[in-house]
């Protein structure tokens, strides 16, 4: 996202936030427009239209699955459906408007969109009459979302899919080298949260407008944080007043976010470790400098976007959850992961780590505690790694952190009873605290090698230089 795009989005947020009536629908329209507007151009040009459209369609279907008949009323949801379909049609009509700076002009033919809307409309109408869905459907939906997620993260699969479509249509449409589906990593996790919570009977049923607003809320659409539906809809229906404190809060977060992202992170990006620099750095010390630059850059970039999202949300009266809490100042890895990309780790804790440990604890064959911790932490971290992309590097990154968390967990357990007396003094605690921060920061920084470098072989070469054994 460029700074000018962010300023336009801030203006949208301000204007929608000022509305006394029709706020939810206006927000829906703006969010739907923004997901088209920000979608990066694709090699297959019409995909630039179809990907955001698919986001809306999948979201509507997920709403259908997770809502109760009480909120599926025709009159109640017609305005929201009208807004969404209008945005779909207007963006498609850009082939006639020719606003090239806003969206692609090579959009699909209008009859395709018309057919899609009719089919979707009919489907919702028919399926909406069911009072309850079979539990298998929820599991199927969760698996389907998982498969979609894999599709966008593994270019070879999306490429193969395109070749199949190409053969089916009898047309040479070319392959795909990559698929960039804006925001879908986050969208899929929000949808999974609603599907899984609905199956567990924990999810409040909300009308279409609230549900879609939650999933594609434009301040947090592309880079999080991942909110929870019940919390979000509470704020949506009872927005926090934009009083003096609200203004100061929103302005502070926006300014801080813009500064972090566009001044600090973008400046650090010029000197952050990458494949090109890694081949020419002439000393271990400078390699550390470049690695630390990468660590700081990734933090300021991501937390800057989060600040911007929270600031924009504040303008709209929605308090988005925090995503970072000074993670690099934490004295151990567990605390680091409790303060880095918090909404993602909470998501994995709720929907993977906790269920997995519960299953292992309650298994008939007793599993040793240390093994439960090892399996749960390593598999969770590997999954978080895969969430970033399906590559060997991300798997290794997950293993690195999973192993680190396990070792730190066991070490802390051991030290509870064997802490030397001199460490328990005030000075000892202080030394322990600061050395913990130093070790944690360096451990995390070394883990970023798997992010910043393209191959494990290069990671190994850089590690050798870092530790002076090259």
């Amino acid at each position, binding site marked *: 996202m460029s700074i000018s795009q962010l300023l336009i989005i801030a203006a949208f947020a301000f204007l929608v936030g000022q509305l006394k009536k029709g706020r939810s629908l206006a927000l829906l329209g703006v969010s739907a427009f923004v997901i088209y507007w920000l979608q990066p151009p694709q090699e297959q040009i019409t995909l630039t239209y179809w990907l955001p459209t698919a986001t809306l369609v999948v979201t509507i279907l997920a709403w259908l699955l997770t809502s109760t008949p009480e909120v599926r009323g025709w009159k109640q949801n017609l305005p929201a459906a009208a807004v969404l379909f209008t945005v779909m049609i207007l963006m498609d009509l850009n082939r006639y408007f020719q606003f090239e700076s806003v969206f692609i002009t090579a959009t699909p033919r209008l009859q395709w969109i018309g057919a899609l809307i009719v089919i979707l409309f009919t489907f919702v109408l028919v399926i909406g009459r069911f009072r309850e869905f079979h539990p298998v459907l929820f599991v199927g939906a969760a698996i389907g979302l998982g498969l979609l997620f894999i599709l966008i993260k593994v270019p070879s699969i999306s490429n193969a899919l395109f070749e199949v479509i190409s053969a089916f249509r009898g047309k040479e449409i070319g392959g795909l080298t990559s698929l960039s589906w804006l925001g879908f990593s986050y969208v899929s996790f929000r949808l999974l949260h609603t599907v899984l919570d609905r199956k567990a009977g924990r999810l409040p049923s909300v009308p279409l407008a609230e549900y879609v607003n939650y999933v594609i809320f434009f301040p947090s659409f592309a880079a999080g944080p991942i909110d929870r539906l019940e919390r979000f809809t509470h704020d949506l229906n009872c927005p926090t007043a*934009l009083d*003096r404190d609200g203004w100061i809060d929103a302005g502070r977060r926006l300014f801080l976010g813009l500064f972090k992202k566009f001044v600090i992170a973008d400046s650090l990006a010029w000197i952050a470790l990458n494949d090109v620099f890694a081949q*020419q750095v*002439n000393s271990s010390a*400078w390699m550390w400098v470049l690695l630390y*630059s990468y660590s700081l850059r990734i933090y300021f970039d991501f937390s800057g976007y989060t600040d911007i999202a929270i600031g924009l949300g504040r303008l709209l009266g929605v308090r988005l959850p925090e995503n970072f809490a000074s993670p690099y100042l934490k004295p151990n890895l567990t605390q680091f992961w409790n303060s880095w990309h918090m909404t993602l780790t909470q998501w994995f804790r709720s929907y993977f780590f906790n269920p997995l440990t519960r299953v292992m604890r309650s298994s008939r064959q007793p599993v040793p505690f240390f093994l439960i911790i090892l399996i749960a932490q390593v598999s969770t971290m590997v999954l978080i790694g895969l969430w970033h992309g399906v590559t060997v590097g991300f798997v290794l990154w997950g293993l690195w952190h999973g192993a680190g968390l396990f070792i730190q967990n066991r070490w802390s357990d051991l030290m509870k009873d064997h802490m030397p007396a001199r460490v328990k003094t005030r000075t000892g605690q202080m030394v322990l605290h600061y050395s913990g921060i130093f070790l944690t920061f360096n451990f995390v920084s070394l883990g970023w090698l798997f992010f910043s470098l393209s191959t494990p072989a290069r990671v190994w070469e850089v590690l050798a230089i870092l530790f002076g054994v090259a």
Partner: protein
Amino acid sequence: MRSEINSIRVIVKALCLFVIINIVYALMNPQGSTVSGYNVLFPGRTRLPFGVAGDPYSVTVDNVDAMFASHVISARKDSKEYRVVLIGDSSLWGEDLGAYEVISEQWNKLDAQCGDKTIKVYDLGYPHPSVIKDLVILDKAVEYEPDLILWFVTLNTLVSRRVNPFLIANHERVAKVLNTYDIAFPQGEKFENGPGFYEKTLIGQRSNLARRIRLEMLGIIWTATGADTNTLAEDDLPNFNVSDDPRYHGMQPSEDIRDRLLFSALTAGYEIAEPVPVLIVNEPIFIAPEAYATVRYNSVYPRWAYDQYRNALTTQAQNAGWYYLDLWNAVPRQYFPDAGLHLSVEGERLLIQQISPTLQSIACVTKP
């Protein structure tokens, strides 16, 4: 205590602050500042900063003060140093060569002496073929106490009157030099009018400011890697095939190119440098075998235009009594990786060998 806030007033105040900051920035014009981490925190660069899109090592900063501030020439001059500055275009800057492969670095490795002084060479080449650009760099270079100036020229240097970003970014300096020595302004309305007030504001200068900050940040990469570019030449043999198009800048062989040559800029350079001697070098070019090219020497120059230029420059140098070396064919064609004007490392070594005797004779015989 919570109270309502007037959003219009917030916006008006923010706008006022924004306008004030922009006006103050325009009046202060900090782009010309020579404050830099180079030569203090980081070693100075061996050549002026110039970047190509997508190259993570490099950035283009057109402001001549900022360019010099990052260059090793801005470090203090040693009393035992005989300072030689080289001025020219991309072939001198060292296109497709590493920062420590440039001609000045190879020259300095020779550790040449002149009496009790060590000859230290500085590469101030910059990749725009423009004698006016060279003049501005020369004008700036004399502030750094050179003992000798080597000015590398070629036909493109003396013909080009195109307005380039360097000339726009240094409008005041360019205008001063051109007015003082009565040289025609480059064509182009944008240049003639100079930057407006908006261009001087923080918003107008945002891109230049970002590139200036990036240049300073890249000091870390420069120190860590010793590299200032990622686009290095590959060891391919040059392509000898050259087209038969006789035109040069739209001119036909029947036309006289001498009217287009800006010799007045070379004369101005001599006057600016006074009393420092200036050696003008007609830089080597790739000469394709006649079997491949009868009309042109290479993809850049048709034979008729280049021959006219060379004869005119020789005559001009003789008439004006300039130090002049015509090295147009001094480097064999295999040392031009791009089959044009840019030399390989070995080509530069050959060039140094060709120039060194003349340089020694000027530096060690002629008293500066």
